[in-house]
């Protein structure tokens, strides 16, 4: 709604509808709803263990063995991923993925060129494949020599760039970035962020960017999704979410940013911990740490409330209960 007005980009590329992920005992994701449009960067923000990475892995259907999608639908363009069984044709070709720790996501035994090459889905000769790889390496900001390098010979930033090259070799429409900068130092990380932003226009790419860092999310993305304990607590335009957070959790997250404090001040943290999935509170999952806690918070899970083109799930803004 708001985004279409702002940027004029209409076409939906990914629609996640009421997704539940888990098994008989635990539910990792509950009622996840969002959509990604063409050339849009969507960030998913939250603490560790909120189910951010699981959301990505549910989209590409690479969940750990003991978890599965229990309910809901995921559409990639018009393809219903949740009922599609030939994911090999989609992975890498239409949806690329990059990971947190590039060094462990690259096979140590093979050269970068060799590993990028195995992702190429087109039926072309060896020479053309190599040309293609060298071209993409240049675009990504690596020297063509990297083709012959082994992963351990590269620095963390170069490895992450190589991973990006691997993910983009087939010109996918959607890139899933699972905390791609967490393991990198600040300068390298900003290089990668800038690269990702540039790639959006070069490759007509949409990105789902998972991060802990809400200020980074605001910088990179059009839309921010804040997750807590497997549910989306707030979702909306990134400027709005960052400058005027509605959900108490988002407010506290932003309050934790070091740049909000002067030198002598003590940085506030959110007290308590993310509840474990085996031991979720009965009502709103954030109720254990929330200062606005009311009685209803412990009894019911809040439903989606639309405020200023944003969606927030909190009883502070009205008593809408999740159906």
């Amino acid at each position, binding site marked *: 709604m708001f985004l279409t007005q702002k940027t004029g980009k209409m076409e939906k590329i990914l629609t996640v509808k009421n997704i539940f992920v888990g098994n008989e005992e635990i539910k990792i994701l509950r009622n996840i709803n969002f959509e990604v449009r063409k050339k849009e960067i969507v960030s998913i923000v939250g603490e560790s263990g909120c189910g951010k990475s699981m959301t990505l892995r549910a989209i590409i259907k*690479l969940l750990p063995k003991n978890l599965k999608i229990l309910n809901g639908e995921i559409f990639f363009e018009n393809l219903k991923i949740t009922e599609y069984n030939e994911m*090999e044709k989609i992975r890498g070709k239409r949806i690329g993925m990059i*990971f947190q720790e590039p060094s462990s996501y690259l096979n140590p035994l093979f050269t970068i060129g060799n590993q990028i090459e195995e*992702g190429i889905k087109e039926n072309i000769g060896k020479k053309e494949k190599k040309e293609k790889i060298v071209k993409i390496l240049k675009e990504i900001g690596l020297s063509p020599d990297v083709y012959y390098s082994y992963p351990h010979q590269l620095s963390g930033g170069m490895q992450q760039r190589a991973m990006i090259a691997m993910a983009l070799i087939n010109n996918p429409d959607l890139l899933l970035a699972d905390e791609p900068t967490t393991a990198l130092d600040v300068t390298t990380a900003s290089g990668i962020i800038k690269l990702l932003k540039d790639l959006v226009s070069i490759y007509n790419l949409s990105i789902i960017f998972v991060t802990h860092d809400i200020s980074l999310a605001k910088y990179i993305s059009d839309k921010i999704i804040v997750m807590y304990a497997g549910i989306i607590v707030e979702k909306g335009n990134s400027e709005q979410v960052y400058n005027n957070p509605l959900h108490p959790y988002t407010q506290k997250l932003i309050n934790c940013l070091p740049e909000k404090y002067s030198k002598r001040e003590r940085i506030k943290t959110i007290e308590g911990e993310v509840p474990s999935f085996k031991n979720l509170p009965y009502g709103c999952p954030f109720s254990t740490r929330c200062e606005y806690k009311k009685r209803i918070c412990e009894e019911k899970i809040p439903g989606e409330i639309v405020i200023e083109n944003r969606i927030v799930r909190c009883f502070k803004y009205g008593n809408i209960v999740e159906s």
Partner: protein
Amino acid sequence: MKSILKRLKNKNFFSYCSFWIIIFLYFLAIMADFISPYPYNKQFRDYPLCPPTRIHFFDHNKNFHLRPFVYEIKLVNPALNQYEIVKEKICPIYFFVKGEKRKILGIFNSERYLFGTKEGKIFLFGTDMHGRDIFSRILYGARISLSIGIIGVSISFFFGFLIGGISGYFGGKIDNILMRLVEIFMMFPAFYLMLSLRAVFPLNLSSFQIYLLIVIILSLIGWAGLARIIRGMVLSIKEEEYVLAARALGVSTFKIIFKHIIPNTFSYSITAITLSIPGYILGESTLSLLGLGIQEPYPSWGNMLSVCIGNLRVLSSAPWMLTPGFFIFLTIICFNFLGDGLRDVLDPKNW
């Protein structure tokens, strides 16, 4: 391959040398028909327990001969096997000398051999009690002793990879059943299992049947431990993040197994292969030593040694009978060095 050798040379010169020694030994074994001066079963009745022949360049008058020569030797005391050199009789050594007709590599007939003497005898490592040339027998014995290692290792690695790979990758019930089977094999002490398996079969088999039997027995013992290790490696590698990344990249399951999982076990398994070959050579030697392996007159390093056992006179008066033992030692130590070197070299993190 070339770059591996180059790295081996720079990294571990010992194992680089071992590699070439092993190649040389295999070459000797293959070309045994051509290199050995006499057939393995040729008995020189006049020369039992003859000591190694010395090769000379200077005769007893201190005259230099460009062509190396041996003196003719004569048995002087048949009871004590004492020999004497006939100083007048000089027998020069020639290349490509004419000898008995033999088939080379089982394909073509030849009368000429790499080296030999026209008159007199040349026994580089002496002779055994029946007057057979030990050098020739070692070359022929190498065929059995060296090939048993390679064939046995390939059979047991085939089963090790297959069983270990299946149970590691699929896990669950299959894993449980296969691993219990492996444990049954590992439970028995290898040596007694080997003996009892051999005892099940009759003794009067042809030498080729015995050869096959030994290979099968040895690899039957060898595969279990390997399967267990491969399974463990596959179990851990399939959880590696680069396997997940490959799946996210849309690589097929088949390609993942053969490109990401199996090659990552190589750093261990190639080393294990080279390190387990000596076990097979020793196993064959042990069986032959106990008279259960390759039967006379066919030579293997093990059964050549077995003649010396229990014969103290041989050990004290004819120590050259122990040369096969030296070759077993050489092969095993070379394979061990090579395995050590390969382990360092094959790990890309060390490049």
